[in-house]
Structures are given as structure tokens and as C-alpha cells.
């Protein structure tokens, strides 16, 4: 009997299967569009054009993608240690608190390029701290990380509401948000890069956090595949027994992995808070943490895949907004359905078509699935 997920050539594994999953998701989404009486092909064109057609669209797509890269990386780092961090949402939210404290304290005295590094550290530290508690409970008390991180999302939401209607709200304001930051806490935009290519941008929030996200993607790759810590995390992730045998402390590795994961989640807040809104408002994360789970799964927990998947979801966000605007029958909720379908097919049903593709490959070219590679060479 073959193992359930046997070998396929790398290009099929990382290219073909995600592509098929994505196509199916769009086909099903097309039927949904038909159901509400719109032309699915026109809808697809509007979606893609909205995301990539104009400079502004591209900038928005990449802005959203930036957010998803951070949350996707966060989920992936924990997943490499076989920890399912569903708390990215709350860790990002609390990361925003760290940023708020830094920005509100220093925005009148320091320039952005001094505040930014401090804010990065604060965002990471606050996010890490929010990941630490569930990690500690998992490592020491065996409380399941999935449950505790979900609960911590709610706790984070409550804490932030409490602060945003209280201590952090300027006196006299009726909005549950901090005061707007001064220019010292505003991050430079990157729109000019897109304009270099001749596109026009009216106003878009794409900022240097995008570059930070790419740097973090590289650092995560380095961490997972090139450091001792990453090696230990992967060992534990694949086999806790082997980790025990190898002298890797379960407590230490769980806590470290979750803190790194939380730090990446916390850094996500930099993008909307310092790059776009220039304040911390209630519910500014708005589900990006959960999208990160889909992004990480779709990107196969690899930073390159995560960046690509994040851009895809950025496209769905941006193009979806255009679609809702252009086609009155398609509401904002429809977009969520489409995103849900992508998550369903690319994440949950990731392996649905795999057996068929495997059979196909096996019949077309037995060698490509490794059928006669290593056997028979036993010493």
C-alpha cells in the first residue's frame, strides 16, 4: 500500500496542486456569482483588474499582502514546531498596544526612523508576551494551545476595548481609538516605487512595512532551515519522542517557538497602525490573524509560499472591494464567501485532488513519483 501522501515532483507539489485547488475554488465561486445573477467572467475580470489593473490597486494589494505575510509567518513558525497558533489575531492586537505606547510617547520628540525600530521591538515584545502565556500553559500544564490561544484572542479583544475606551482614548473623544499620531510616527510610503513603473497612484497605504515583511520572510527561512533553534523546532515538530531523545527540552522549545510566532504576529500591527491609520482603533486586526492560518497552509509553511499566498489574499481583499463596488448584487459578504472558498480548497481540502494527481503521475511516468528510486540498493 502506498502512503497517503507519497512523493510527487516538487513542481507538482508546490505549483500544480495549489493551482488546481485555487482554480476549483474560483470555479465554485463563479457558480455562486451566477447564483446571484451576475456574470462570473466579468466578475473575475473586475476582481483581477481591481487588484492589479491600476497603480492604486497594486499598492492596496501589496498593503494587504504585507499584513498577511506577517500573520502567515507567525502561524508557520509555530506550525514547524507542531503548535497550531490560532492566537495570531490576539497577538497582533496586543502588538498594536505596544506600538501605541511607543508612538504616543515619542511621536512629538523623535523622527520616524528612530521611533520605527523602537516600535518594532515593542510590537514584537508585546506579541511575544501574548504568545508566552499559552505556550507556558501548554508546556507546563498540558493545556492545549489551540484552546488557550483562541481564548487569548478574546482576552486581547476585551483588554483592548477596555483601554481604547479608557486610558488610551483622548479626553472628550467619542471614538474608541487613540489620538492620531503626529508626523514623527508615520512611516514613509512606498507608492513611489510603483510610480517608477509608470503607474499612477492616487492615495494608497503601501509603506515600508512591506520591505520589513520581506526581510522577516527571509529571516524566518534562515531561522527554520539554517539555525540550531530551527532544527530543534523542526525535530520537535516532527517527533516529540525524537526531540526528547536528542536532549531538546520540550518546555524551552514550545515557549521559544510560540514567542517568535507571537512576535511576528505583533509586528503585523506596524503595517496598519503606523503605515496607514496612524492610530490604534478598535478591531484594527479585523481577522488578518485568521487569514494568516490560510496563508501559512497554502504557502506550505515556506516563506516563499507564504509571500505568494499573502499576495493572493491581498488580491482577494483589494479586488473584492472593487467587485463589491462595481457589482451591486455582490456585497462585501460575497467576497468573504469567495475568500472562504479559497481557504476551503487550498487549506482544508488541500489533499483532495492529490490521490488523483498521484495516480495520473504514476501512470504517465512511474519514475517521477519515485517508484523505483531507492529500493533494491539495500546494503
Amino acid at each position: 500500500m502506498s502512503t497517503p501522501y507519497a512523493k510527487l515532483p516538487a513542481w507538482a507539489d508546490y505549483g500544480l496542486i495549489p493551482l488546481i485547488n485555487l482554480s476549483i475554488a474560483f470555479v465554485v465561486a463563479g457558480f455562486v456569482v451566477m447564483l446571484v445573477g451576475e456574470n462570473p467572467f466579468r466578475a473575475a475580470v473586475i476582481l483581477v483588474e481591481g487588484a492589479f489593473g491600476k497603480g492604486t490597486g497594486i499598492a492596496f494589494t501589496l498593503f494587504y499582502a504585507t499584513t498577511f505575510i506577517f500573520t502567515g509567518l507567525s502561524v508557520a513558525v509555530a506550525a514547524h514546531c507542531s503548535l497550531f497558533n490560532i492566537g495570531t489575531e490576539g497577538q497582533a492586537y496586543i502588538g498594536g498596544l505596544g506600538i501605541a505606547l511607543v508612538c504616543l510617547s515619542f511621536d512629538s520628540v523623535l523622527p520616524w526612523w528612530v521611533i520605527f525600530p523602537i516600535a518594532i521591538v515593542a510590537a514584537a515584545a508585546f506579541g511575544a508576551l501574548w504568545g508566552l502565556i499559552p505556550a507556558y500553559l501548554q508546556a507546563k500544564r498540558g493545556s492545549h494551545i489551540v484552546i488557550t490561544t483562541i481564548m487569548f484572542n478574546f482576552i486581547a479583544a476585551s483588554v483592548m476595548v477596555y483601554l481604547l475606551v479608557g486610558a488610551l482614548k483622548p479626553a472628550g473623544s467619542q471614538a474608541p481609538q487613540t489620538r492620531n499620531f503626529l508626523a514623527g510616527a508615520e512611516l514613509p510610503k512606498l507608492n513611489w516605487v510603483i510610480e517608477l513603473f509608470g503607474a499612477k497612484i492616487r492615495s494608497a497605504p503601501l509603506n515600508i512595512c512591506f520591505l520589513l515583511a520581506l526581510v522577516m520572510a527571509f529571516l524566518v527561512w534562515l531561522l527554520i532551515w539554517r539555525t540550531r533553534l530551527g532544527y530543534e523546532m523542526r525535530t520537535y515538530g516532527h517527533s516529540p519522542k525524537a526531540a526528547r531523545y536528542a536532549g531538546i527540552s520540550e518546555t524551552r522549545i514550545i515557549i521559544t517557538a510560540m514567542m517568535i510566532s507571537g512576535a511576528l504576529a505583533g509586528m503585523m500591527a506596524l503595517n496598519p497602525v503606523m503605515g496607514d491609520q496612524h492610530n490604534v482603533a478598535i478591531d484594527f486586526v479585523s481577522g488578518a490573524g485568521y487569514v494568516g492560518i490560510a496563508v501559512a497552509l497554502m504557502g506550505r509553511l515556506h516563506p516563499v509560499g507564504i509571500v505568494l499566498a499573502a499576495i493572493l489574499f491581498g488580491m482577494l481583499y483589494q479586488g473584492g472591494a472593487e467587485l463589491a463596488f462595481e457589482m451591486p448584487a455582490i456585497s462585501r459578504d460575497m467576497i468573504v464567501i469567495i475568500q472562504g472558498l479559497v481557504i476551503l480548497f487550498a487549506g482544508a481540502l488541500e489533499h483532495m485532488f492529490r490521490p488523483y494527481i498521484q495516480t495520473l503521475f504514476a501512470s504517465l511516468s512511474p519514475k517521477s513519483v519515485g517508484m523505483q528510486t531507492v529500493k533494491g540498493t539495500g546494503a
Partner: protein
Amino acid sequence: MAQAAIELIGIDKSFGAVRANRDINLEVARGTIHGIVGENGAGKSTLMSILYGFYQADSGEIRVGGKPVSIHTSNDAIALGIGMVHQHFMLVDNFTVLENIILGAESDALLKKSIAKARSELERLEREYGLEVDPDAIIEELPVGLQQRVEILKALYRGAEILILDEPTGVLTPAEADHLFRILKQLKEQGKTIVLITHKLREIMAITDTVSVMRQGTMVATRVTKETTVGELAELMVGRRVLLRVEKGESEAGAIKLSVKNLTVKDSRGVTMVDDVSFDVRGGEIVGIAGVAGNGQSELLEAISGIRHAVSGEVMLEGKPIDLTGKADPGELRDRGLAHVPEDRHHVGLVLAFEENENSILGYHDDERYLKGPFLNVDAIMADAKDKIEKYDIRPGNPRLKTANFSGGNQQKIVLAREMEQDPGVLIVGQPTRGVDVGAIEFIHKRLIAMRDQGKAVLVVSVELDEIRSLSDRILVMFAGRVVGERGPDATEGELGLLMAGVEHQEAAQ
């Protein structure tokens, strides 16, 4: 002559290249208790799984009550009146006894009628066979012996005329086992046919009418229990195989390197697995621990290597104690010169999803040689892996290949290469050649002897008696958690087999 309840004719079954059963013929007479003995891996469970519909035989015929039948699922088996009590119970822990009994035999959606019917039926069965269990007790609150009784009731409830019990006493205390035997005898008197699979000869002698011996997938003999002896069965079980003897000189035992004193280890259920074990291993000798699997050898190895918590006792490595509280750092023990080749290379000794080179540093990834600051020194790791591939003839010789894609023998070589090349003072090895092809066995044995000749202390645990005999300078036999005897390398298989089966030496000498 009683009529045959089951006949198996020419049963063959292969798993890949392994022939688990070859040309098996077996006849079990109605109303008898028939024992099937054999070492682990002899093919007993496979044979019974075929009879119960878990596997399909590649060829051969099964007859139940004289009629040829085909059994594709366990439902077919149940319909034919065959019931099985598995070694690991198939019970729902948080259900009551009654709920477990009707599971899969519910006759209506609301269960009310099923339960009422089951209750009266169960009461009848309990009366008839003396199998008292409270129908409303929750399974997880029952002791193991009673859980097993529920399994038996389950089979009887489904109308089983033929009961197969797979290693039924493995989890029982001696008193519970005695009680089970009384029940089985009673069932026999009621006309049921019982097939008892075990590797414990004492049980065979105590309860069966006839006994069949399996070895390496074949049925080597069937005897009337009264007319055979434990000695004969032991000999049939281990057989007079051609020995894989390795050339080796006299051992020159030096100073004590590993010393175990009064070590006691319990498992998670609180059952004593290692019971007051003491021994020494000197530099320049191989000490082999023989025993049927499950007699505490695994727990012993894990305790010594710092992975498992020990209740009491002392282990000294090169004269200094090892932390037995379960908090020992296996990494620190490695630094002190203890290398460990674990029994379970798939989950413990290797990470199968890793590339070969990544596994070649598992446990030694803290070593400065493999690091550049916090980073892995990929060049050094690759060079090191290639070096080991060369020295240990690991094939295919590609350090970037996923470990899962290597054969069992080559996987074991990856582990051995890693542990031996660290030049440890003490090497402990669990099942050095389990699932390893013949060519690699010889290579591994030679390496182990070379380690000994370099003055290392080597402790080998194996269920392969041949291996123990050909490698060891001294042989310890473990049974039920205790070391029941020590023999020289010239001990006969029969002698060791009896010790392994828990028969006292005095009896064996008769």
C-alpha cells in the same frame, strides 16, 4: 474424534517482501482449547487476523464447521460465529459495559429496545458462564481483567462459537490470568472452541488441549499438550536455525563503565516494568539482554539513557550517577560518553521527514563542530554526513535524500554511524538489527564487536536470540521485569528459551 471447528489449508500471506505466513495448515477441533505459540513476529497475529477478516490471505482456504468460507470483514467472521478478543481492547472507555456490548449491534435508532434486550441477554450470559460484570459500570473505571471480560462477553453476545484470544494475559496480573483460565475452561465445557495465541509456554501447558508452534511464518509442529514438554516447545519455538556467527576474539573486560543497581521502573499505568535489576557492563565486553519483547527491556534502556523516570535504584556512568528522575538531559549524558541507539528508530532515533544529513547530527546538534554561532554549519554537516556514508556504506549515498526513503538497514546504519562516530565510552543498543536485511546485519554486528575491541562497554538488548548469542560475552535474561539468569555465550538456545519463557532453571534442568 471431534469435528473440526476451523480448518486453515495452505494459507499464504505476504506484506511486500516479507512472507508473514507461508503454507499454513491448522485444524482446531470443536470444543477444545488450542494454543498457538511462537516468538514475536512468527506470524501468529497475522494468521488470526486473516481468520477474523482483517487481512485477506494471498492464497489458501478457510473452512468453518467443514464448509469453505470467505471472510472479508470482521462482520463475516462474526456471522460465522468467530469472535476475537484483541490484545489491545476495542472498548469505548467512557461508555458503560452495556453500551459497549451493543455497540455495532444496535437494532433500533432509539436504543431503548436494544438496551433492554441486551440487558436480559447479558444477564443470561453472565449467569451461564460465570462472567459477572456490572452492566452499568463505566469501562474506564473497571480493572483490566474485567475489561477483558467485557470483550469476551461482547464476542459471546454476538453469538461466537469460536473465540480467538490474542495474548490475553499480557496485561493481566497473575491472579487475573488464573481467573481468565477458569473462565476459558468453563467456556470449553459449554462447547465453545477457543484459540489462544501467546508466547508464554506456562499458559499453554496450563490450559490448552493441543498446541501449534509457529516460527518465521511457518507452522512447524502441532502437539497434544499432554504429550509434550515445555522444553520441546521452547526448542521448536526458537528452532535450530543456522547461526549468524560473527568472528570475534576473546573479550578483554576492563573497568566497570556502566553500573546498574536495584533499578525499578514503572510505566504510566503504575505497572512495574523493571523490577530491582542490577548488573555491570565493563569496558571491552558486550553484555546482551535476552528476553521476549515486553518484559521490561525497553523501559530499562530508556531509564539508563535518561529518557524515562525510574522509581528507585542507581545507574552509574563511568563512576558518576545518572539522574533517574526523568529530568536528565540526554544531551548531557552524551557529553559524558553515553551513546544510545534506540529500539524505535522511526520515531525516536530518526526524524524520517528529515534529510539524511540532518539526522546524522540528531542529538549532537549542540556540538560546536556543526555550528557557526547560532547557525548550522551546513558545509561541516554535509562533509560529516558524507564521511559517515562512506565509512558505514550507507546507500544510496545521498545526504540530501529524505530519511524515510532509505531501507530499514540503511536507516539503522545512519543511527549507528551517528552514535558510534562520537567515540562514546558506553554504547547501549536496542534491537540492533530489527527490520534490517541480512547483509546489513553482519555489518552491524562487526561494528559492534569492533567497538568492544576498542575497549568500549556495549549493552545490547535484542529479542533475537541468535543475535544475543553471537554478539554477547555475557547474556542476561529478562522475564517479567527481572533479570532471571546470567549465562555465558555458550548457553544453548533451549536453555535461554526456557529462561525467557519464565521457567525456572531447576525445572529446565530436569
